[in-house]
């Protein structure tokens, strides 16, 4: 089953539903065997993009290549795609095994061969001993595995997953993330995964496509996306990023950004001090200490306990900040106390608003 199949390429794909512009010129290249996550808030177009690749949404212009074939006018049943829905969409009247056999039967595979391949696929997804059960008799996680087996048994060119783990409880979801990822590696199938859960995207994808309002904001591997967001919106959306804006003022030592009348932060080395830019700094990079006289003070609004860290919400004359601190540090600054923030310019990035 291990085969290097074709990749996926989209060129300037536009799609409107009446007045609503769901996709505004999407161009994207997914390499053979790559695992790409489409990440964005609801309504950003990520599901529409996935459905366009599957053939259930119809772009008005642009090209979609699976392998080297432009499939824009090819009906879904001829695209050789494996599709897993959030609702699993299992056939309720068929058993687990029959569900998996369905795609093989439509391809004219004889019954005996279909059964043995379906069995192999069910084993691959870690579901054995439930072959004769109907979907209603299976748990959510088991249904998920049947849906996955049904999608991969046909050896699709592209595997498309539409929030497949969203309906599972957290523990199972994390386990499935790991399994799904290693299964995808083993099969080497080009995979596009839609999610609104950035943790999931960071954990699984080779590259993440961040979408907003029908456009792609950034495409990057998870760590790079986390460290180097391409603009302020991505910085805020992915992870707990802080955006600080203010006038850029150049003094003797170089350019600074004035985030409050009595607080200037030096710009990172090499940053171009253009107007219309904002300073981005990750929450875990912000340190707190007791304020000095005349220094800009921040008020602690609230603590939010996240397990390993406490997220400290702060506000000051120039806006709000979130800092991630270990609990023993956060305990020094209870709500309503006043603090000063320490930000190292080396941890900052200047981003377009």
């Amino acid at each position, binding site marked *: 089953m291990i085969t290097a199949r074709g990749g996926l390429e989209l060129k300037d794909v536009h799609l409107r539903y009446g007045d609503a512009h769901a996709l505004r010129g999407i161009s994207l290249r997914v390499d053979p065997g790559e695992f790409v996550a489409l990440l964005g808030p609801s309504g950003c177009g990520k599901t529409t993009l996935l459905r366009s690749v599957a053939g*259930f949404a119809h772009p008005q212009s642009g090209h979609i290549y699976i392998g080297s074939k432009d499939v824009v006018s090819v009906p879904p*049943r001829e695209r050789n795609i494996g*599709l897993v829905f959030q609702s699993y969409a299992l056939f309720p009247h068929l058993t687990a095994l029959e569900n998996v056999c*369905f795609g093989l039967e439509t*391809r004219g595979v004889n019954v005996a061969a279909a059964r043995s391949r379906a069995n192999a696929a069910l084993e691959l997804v870690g579901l054995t001993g439930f072959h004769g059960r109907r979907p209603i008799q299976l748990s959510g996680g088991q249904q998920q595995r049947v849906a996955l087996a049904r999608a991969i048994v046909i050896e699709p060119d592209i595997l498309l997953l539409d929030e497949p783990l969203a309906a599972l409880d957290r523990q199972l979801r994390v386990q499935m993330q790991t399994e799904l990822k290693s299964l995808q590696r083993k099969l080497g199938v080009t995979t596009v995964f839609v999610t609104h859960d950035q943790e999931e995207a960071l954990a699984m994808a080779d590259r993440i496509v961040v979408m907003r309002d029908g456009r792609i904001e950034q495409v990057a591997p998870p760590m790079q996306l986390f460290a180097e967001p391409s603009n302020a919106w991505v910085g805020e959306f992915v992870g707990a990023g802080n955006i600080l804006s203010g006038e850029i003022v150049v003094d003797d030592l170089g350019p600074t950004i004035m985030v409050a009348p009595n607080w200037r932060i030096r710009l990172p080395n090499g940053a171009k001090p253009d107007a219309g830019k904002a300073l981005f700094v990750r929450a875990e990079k912000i340190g707190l200490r007791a304020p000095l006289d005349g220094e800009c003070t921040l008020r602690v609004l609230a603590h939010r306990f996240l397990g390993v860290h406490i997220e400290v919400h702060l506000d000051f004359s120039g806006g709000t900040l979130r800092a991630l601190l270990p609990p023993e540090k956060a305990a020094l600054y209870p709500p309503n106390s006043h603090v000063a923030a320490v930000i190292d310019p080396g941890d900052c990035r200047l981003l377009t608003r």
Partner: protein
Amino acid sequence: MIESRIVSVIAWGVVVFLMAPLIVVIGGSFTESAYVAFPPQGFSLKWYVQLLERKDFFTSFKESLVIGVAATLGAVGLGVPAAIGLSRGPFWGRGFLKAFVMSPIVLPTVITGIALLQFYRMIDSALPLTQIVIGHIVITVPYILRTVGAGLQLLPPNIEEAAESLGAGRIRTLLKVTLPSIAPSVLVGTIFVFIISFDQVTISIFLSSADAMPLPIRIYSYIEFAIDPMVAAVSTVLILFSYLLVVVLERAFGLDRVFGGGTGR
């Protein structure tokens, strides 16, 4: 404790309330007297013997069966595709179409009966059985739409898209996925339709004639002249017939599954 006792008293009360008339009818059919008496006076099968000699009742029973089966086939044949069609996304005139096919359930059946009678007069129809069958189809299609429509709504979303992504064309998807998935609700609808048709008085009374007289109308016209225990005997036979039907369905499909919504997720 007390609560559950109250519940069981109420439950038994309902059972008695529903069963008592049946018991009176069944008991009364075995009476020796010339009128329906309960408890029966003596024990006799003479009213059953008399019923066997009534060819007209037997003919009516056969007609009711034929009408019931034909009306069921017609209502299912029209109703299932209509339900599938109406469940598909908004299209122009969908609301009107839905209201139109559902209207017989809202209109008093008497009005539908009169309208059909007038219509058949106008076109000078001379197909007595067919007329009744069509009448029954008109009033039973809404029941199919209701049950099958509900079955379609309970299906997991996207199953047809899933089938298509797996390489199935529209016809294969319809035959292998959509129809089998809604089979339980189609079966429920079928049972409703047959019962409604077999038991139908209002429509049939307008459309029946000497050439086509379903059993309920035959019984009705008989008791206009005489209420003797033979009517109780016919009723007993019908009760037995319904009971056997239920037993067969139970054996074949399991009524719990059928009425318990076997399509749930």
